[in-house]
């Protein structure tokens, strides 16, 4: 069966510090991968998606970046965090050949920037 992991679960970082959040998927090959951010009481904002190794599409201009160094690994990074980067970060995957794009979400990372 497929599983998706995210770490860390929670993170408190000072403004201006770097960020690296990691997501890995097991039990599937060539998944579509996604990073979302969810502010308190708000909907999911798509940040990045990837349909293959090294292929990253950015949805929102910001100080975040994403990379996909391996088929089932997706990394979200920042060189300098802003207060506005605080939120709940969710990684998700979907079947690349599926036509209904059901998404499977990880447990999330709660990021607080102080």
């Amino acid at each position: 069966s497929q599983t998706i992991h995210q770490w860390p679960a929670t993170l408190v970082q000072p403004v201006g510090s770097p960020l690296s959040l990691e997501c890995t998927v097991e039990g599937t090959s060539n998944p579509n991968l996604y990073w979302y951010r969810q502010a308190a009481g708000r909907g999911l904002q798509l940040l990045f998606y990837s349909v293959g190794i090294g292929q990253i599409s950015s949805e929102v201009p910001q100080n975040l970046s994403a990379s996909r160094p391996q088929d089932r690994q997706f990394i979200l990074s920042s060189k300098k965090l802003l207060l506005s980067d605080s939120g709940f970060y969710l990684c998700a995957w979907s079947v690349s050949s599926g036509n209904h794009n059901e998404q499977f979400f990880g447990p999330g990372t709660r990021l607080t920037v102080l």
Partner: protein
Amino acid sequence: SQKIEQNSEALNIQEGKTATLTCNYTNYSPAYLQWYRQDPGRGPVFLLLIRENEKEKRKERLKVTFDTTLKQSLFHITASQPADSATYLCALPLTGGFKTIFGAGTRLFVKA
């Protein structure tokens, strides 16, 4: 641009009653619509998908309707239980199928 609207006010109902949540969308004709459940501090979990040519879909105590004329989906939970308390999100695919837009969700509280 495409928009999804869900009632931002929480829905409070008594155990055993039917909960009905609404999802409206504009500027869009999606091929299907999805519903997810999200518990506090957790990632959303897929519940149901309904296609544009389906009027109604059922899964156990869940029922979803899809009115493409009204551009609206209704999500029903019959015989609701306190364990059904969560936030429910509707989601639509964007053209190309790789991306999905999510509504902000409606928080449901079921009282025992």
